């Protein structure tokens, strides 16, 4: 999977699970590992999404990755 494609897939997973399930970075890595994506590739894609502000880290008793738009409501 190309990096941009992977980024899109990660974003969509977070988007679709918003309000239902919170993902940690390790959860995302395990999820995409099952699709044959290396841990390093998933990690790098998450990093780019976070740096771009598309996704953000949140803290609710533990650190999670959620949609970036949420920050506007902080």
């Amino acid at each position: 999977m190309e990096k941009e494609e992977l980024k899109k897939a990660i974003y969509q997973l977070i988007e679709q699970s918003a309000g239902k399930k919170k993902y940690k970075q390790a959860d995302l890595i395990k999820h995409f590992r099952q699709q044959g994506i290396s841990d390093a590739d998933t990690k790098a894609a998450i990093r780019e999404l976070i740096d771009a502000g598309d996704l953000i880290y949140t803290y609710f008793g533990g650190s999670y990755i959620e949609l970036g738009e949420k920050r506007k409501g902080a």
Partner: protein
Amino acid sequence: MTKKYDTPLLDELEKGPFPSFVTEMKKAAAKNAMAADELGQLEKSFRDKVTYWKHGGIVGVRGYGGGVIGRYSQLADEFPGVAHFHTVRVNQPSGLFYTSETMKFFCDLWDKYGSGLTNFHGSTGDIIFLGTVTDNLEPLATILSMNGFDLGGSGSAMRTPSCCVGPARCEWSMIDTLDITYDLTQEFQDELHRPQFPYKFKIKTVGCPVDCNASIARADLSIIGTWKGPIAIDQDKVKDYAKKGMNIQEEIVNFCPGKCITWDGNTLTINNSDCLHCMHCITKLAGALKPTPPFGAVILIGAKAPFVIGATLSWVIVPFMEMKPPYQEIKDLIRNMWDWWNEYGKNRERIGELILRRGMREFLEVCGLEPTPEMVKEPRNDPFWFWTEEDLEKKPWEEYLK
């Protein structure tokens, strides 16, 4: 002019001989509305016996998953100055050394962007800036960065590593705690700023077993300086201590946990092979006894107070590791244990808890460590032996049959 509140309950905390945080907060409250409202809310909390803080959430600096702890007041209408009152953690310099200029920089910065209230230092070791609003976070982080400082760790991340003053000021330091801490901080920037673990992970480095940073009680990974050579004894100085009134038998010999010291009134003898390296004798007889090279570190894992099983001290996983730049051995070990923890750790499960749940044997296997006697916390008290297929292939009973 800031708002003033009557604070009869907080005033009680100013009485007595000790410095009071209330006094300092009142000074800040005289010129800062946030600090004034914080004082008012705290008094109300004391009166009602309720905390009015909400904590956590989605506040932070772009690209960072830690360093800011979101805090909001439930009484924003009554105390508008603390509607947002976020805590900012800043990575402290190794050993907590500052110039006066740096301290003034921090104080001016926080007067401008926050409540003016600080905490040097938090229990993790960071510089703590208490109370700011969301809009100030980005400019604050930028200014800190331009001046050579960075945010610290929070959340499910590696927390800001900390250490004792080490060789900078201490004669007993057997490793360069300052350099190790700085090096590990640089090496693990990603793990520090981008939370990716099941829970927090703390690394604390101390130069000797006196453990001035309490790493054995407060760190998931403790790096404690130690030695391998015999303890050097200056018999004349030992006798000086005795002449000056020290009871060597009672204060030194009887306190030795390894029972390896003898004193005949004239000569102190140490059986180094039985020494447990607690450093009691060395610290009590300062100048008369000292450790000798080779120097290195003992690596321990798994301490934390609110453990599932109660307060837990860390336990030994590497009895002696050389600690020379670039510290590759400890870095590799840390990465191995993180991989395992990330794979099997439950949410909010510390690595020590995972070891308890899945077993030290598995932990040692994934870390590539051989079991050694130093790892035994206490002798087992059940009669069962557990053998793996690999163990049986080695026919260990043959050793006993001989």
